[in-house]
């Protein structure tokens, strides 16, 4: 690769790449994100390559492995260009037909299209699928067009143009002003204005200054940053270099979660390629600006995503937070001014520089500009990554994009902000996605986890789940967080275990207040949110657990009893065999009965009773029906 020495040469390179590509040549783009790989995309790619060869089309068709377009649940996803036909859940067996029908004959294969479960309507193109139609995909929209390991793909679509503009046509101050004016707020959780943070680092005394990408993504249930880093790593690099230029930094770090090997691989390849073109390194694009990037792998601790902890981890020490009397923007890595932003925050920067702050400000709400990527998961029909303009309502995300709740169940709550956020109930579904509005509901935007829960989810159990998670993840350095979480865990365990007492709710509220005020880092300060919001919005469920020893959602193990419905039991004997404490009496042709005294409520019988029978029932807060009398236990063949 030849070095690119000026914006003009970059544009020349782009033209050259485009001229070597025939826009009418068929191209098969296969998503090779982790989601699709998990569903067998690698095999699909191999078979496509073999089949193209076999059908003598090797020179006439391009095959591209791309990043994740978001609809991971329906993977492996294949898009055929130039028509942009979108096939879902493609299996190796489908490949020969795709080549012979769609590539050769230009015929669409109906069975592989998206079919609307309610209307039965088929969508041929990506843009028609309701899941995508209601999104505004500025950041992830290009993923399916780009091979993340090909810098040329990125440049062909205008990549690094913003960098050229910033470095060669703008002063660092102008870049800073533009980002400030755009009111880009941090996508990693807090929504702190990026421009203001950048300025702090720029103005802080001390050299060198560092810029850092936070790709720790510890929120369990979220994978936005992973998809960006895996699917379009150059957009993050470009944003980082632009920021570094504005701040006056010449060295950057990308801190990636250990669990994301593909992201580490792709970002490393991208850095190498950018270096070869001279888009990283010395004298970038002939501007005189130097910048290098180093990739660090996190080692799997949630708290390491916190800014001061992350910086200690970069120094190679245990990633624990420290008190931030002095902010990391002023004194971070090796006590030097260090500016940390989330992956998605950085990826927005090239867009702002390229199209201008005014354009960016035209998207979103008064206080929250641009788009936000969410990982929409849980009890919702269409799960995956969704990117929406700020200001869209939660309802629209869950119902228009997500397609509502599966199995005709009732919506109960949606959790935003991960373990630091809160559960938002039905009556606030029309709240819009906006930093300030979600905070008003005692939740927060967070990094983008959005977990939908239905009537079968117990909110007390989920609150306990988060506290449990945070208890394990608290670094233990400060007392309010360490002890507060432990105490909360005990109380919540008591409540879900049927040992809840009067006054427990108030105690939880009191502990929450102390933790919010006195904890060292945001982990402890925000940890009570899941508990507080559930108490606030679902107090009756807490009371049912405490006063009636009843779990309304039939989740909390110690508050439910298992009972075999005599009308449904077919005497298959499986449960009797599997029950670890031999609490089930039965035998050939006999309706099975659980001995409530012996039963440990492990749930095995419920799990193993074949779905076609579903004879084992959960009961909570009411007495278990008396067992069928001995005389009626014999199953009469053909009768039942």
């Amino acid at each position, binding site marked *: 690769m030849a070095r690119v020495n000026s914006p003009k040469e970059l544009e020349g390179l782009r033209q050259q790449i485009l001229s070597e590509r025939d826009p009418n040549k068929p191209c098969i783009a296969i998503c090779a994100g982790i989601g699709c790989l998990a*569903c067998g995309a690698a095999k699909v790619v191999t078979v496509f390559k073999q089949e193209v060869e076999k059908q003598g089309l090797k020179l006439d068709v391009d095959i591209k492995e791309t990043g994740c377009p978001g609809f*991971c649940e329906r993977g492996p996803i294949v898009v055929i260009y130039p028509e942009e036909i979108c096939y879902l859940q493609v299996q190796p067996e489908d490949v020969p037909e795709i080549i012979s029908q769609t590539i050769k004959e230009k015929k669409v294969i109906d069975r592989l299209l998206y079919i609307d479960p309610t209307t039965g309507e088929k969508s041929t193109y990506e843009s028609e699928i309701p899941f995508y139609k209601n999104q505004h995909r500025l950041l992830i929209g290009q993923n399916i067009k780009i091979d993340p390991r090909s810098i040329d793909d990125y440049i062909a679509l205008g990549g690094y143009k913003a960098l050229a503009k910033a470095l060669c046509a703008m002063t660092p101050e102008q870049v800073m002003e533009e980002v400030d004016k755009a009111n880009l707020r941090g996508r990693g959780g807090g929504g702190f204005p990026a421009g203001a943070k950048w300025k702090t680092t720029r103005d802080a005394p001390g050299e060198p200054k560092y810029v850092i990408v936070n790709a720790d993504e510890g929120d369990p*249930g979220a994978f936005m940053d992973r998809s960006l880093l895996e699917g379009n790593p150059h957009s993050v690099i470009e944003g980082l270099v632009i920021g570094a230029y504005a701040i006056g930094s010449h060295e950057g770090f990308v801190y990636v979660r250990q669990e994301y090997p593909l992201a580490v691989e792709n970002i490393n390849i991208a850095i190498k390629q950018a270096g070869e073109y001279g888009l990283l390194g010395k004298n970038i694009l002939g501007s005189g600006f130097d910048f290098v990037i180093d990739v660090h*792998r996190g080692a799997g*601790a949630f708290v390491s995503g916190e800014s001061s902890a992350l910086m200690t981890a970069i120094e190679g020490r245990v990633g624990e937070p420290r008190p931030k009397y002095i902010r990391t923007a002023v004194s971070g890595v090796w006590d030097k001014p260090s500016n940390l932003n989330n992956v998605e925050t950085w990826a927005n920067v090239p867009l702002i520089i390229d199209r201008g702050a005014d354009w960016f400000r035209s998207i979103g709400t008064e206080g929250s500009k641009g788009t936000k990527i969410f990982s929409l998961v849980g009890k919702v029909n269409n*799960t995956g990554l969704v990117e929406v303009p700020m200001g869209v309502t939660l309802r629209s995300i869950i119902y228009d994009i997500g397609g509502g709740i599966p199995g005709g169940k009732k919506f109960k709550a949606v959790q935003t902000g991960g373990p630091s956020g809160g559960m938002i109930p039905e009556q606030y579904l029309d709240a819009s996605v906006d930093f300030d509005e979600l905070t008003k509901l005692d939740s927060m935007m967070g990094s983008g986890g959005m*977990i939908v829960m239905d009537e079968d989810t117990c909110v007390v159990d989920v609150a306990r789940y988060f506290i449990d998670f945070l208890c394990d993840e608290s670094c233990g350095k400060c007392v309010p967080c360490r002890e507060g979480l432990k105490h909360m865990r005990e109380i919540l365990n008591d409540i879900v275990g049927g040992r809840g007492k009067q006054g427990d709710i108030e105690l939880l509220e009191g502990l929450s207040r102390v933790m919010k005020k006195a904890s060292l880092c945001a982990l402890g300060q925000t940890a009570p949110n899941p508990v507080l919001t559930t108490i606030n919005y679902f107090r009756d469920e807490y009371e049912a657990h405490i006063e009636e020893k009843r779990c309304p959602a039939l989740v909390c193990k110690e508050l439910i009893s298992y009972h075999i419905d005599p009308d449904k039991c077919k005497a298959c004997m499986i449960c009797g065999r599997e029950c670890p404490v031999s609490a089930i009496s039965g035998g050939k042709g006999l309706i099975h009965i659980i001995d409530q005294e012996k039963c440990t409520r492990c749930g095995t019988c419920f799990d193993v009773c074949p779905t076609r029978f579903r004879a084992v029932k959960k009961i909570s807060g009411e007495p278990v029906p008396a067992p069928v009398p001995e005389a009626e236990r014999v199953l009469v063949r053909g009768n039942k």
Partner: protein
Amino acid sequence: MAGKVESQELDLTKLDKILSRYEGQDDALISVLQGVQAEFGWVPQGAIEHIADAFQISPGEVYGVLTFYEQFYLTPRGRNTIRVCRGTACHVRGTNANLRTVERTLGIKEGGTTNDFKFSLETVACLGTCFLAPVMMVNRNYYGKLTPDKVETILKQYD
């Protein structure tokens, strides 16, 4: 059992090779430990002391790092590693029943290894494939939309 594996003798040349890759880098402790784990599958006691010497810190400090992060193992592992996701998305979609099934089938608890070293069982905070919830991984393979009976079939495929 652990003693037996320990006595297979730690190959110090392999360890030194890893250390030499990061020579002179004070910030490389975690990278070295990651390298050791990749090489040996766990971090043996002998390696800890050797690494502490190389970094001129106390073994206690190395322990501190090792125990802080979940990815490091201080005991030998089974040939296959099962990782059941306990993330939020998986939790609300019923991952606990799957975890129970793995534990029951293999007779081990989370964090344990079967006596024949066939399986080690871990739980993780999120596998990043939440749209497949509930998910578990065996080695590098993902299994999504799991139910207890699927779990049993999957476990049978490994040796």
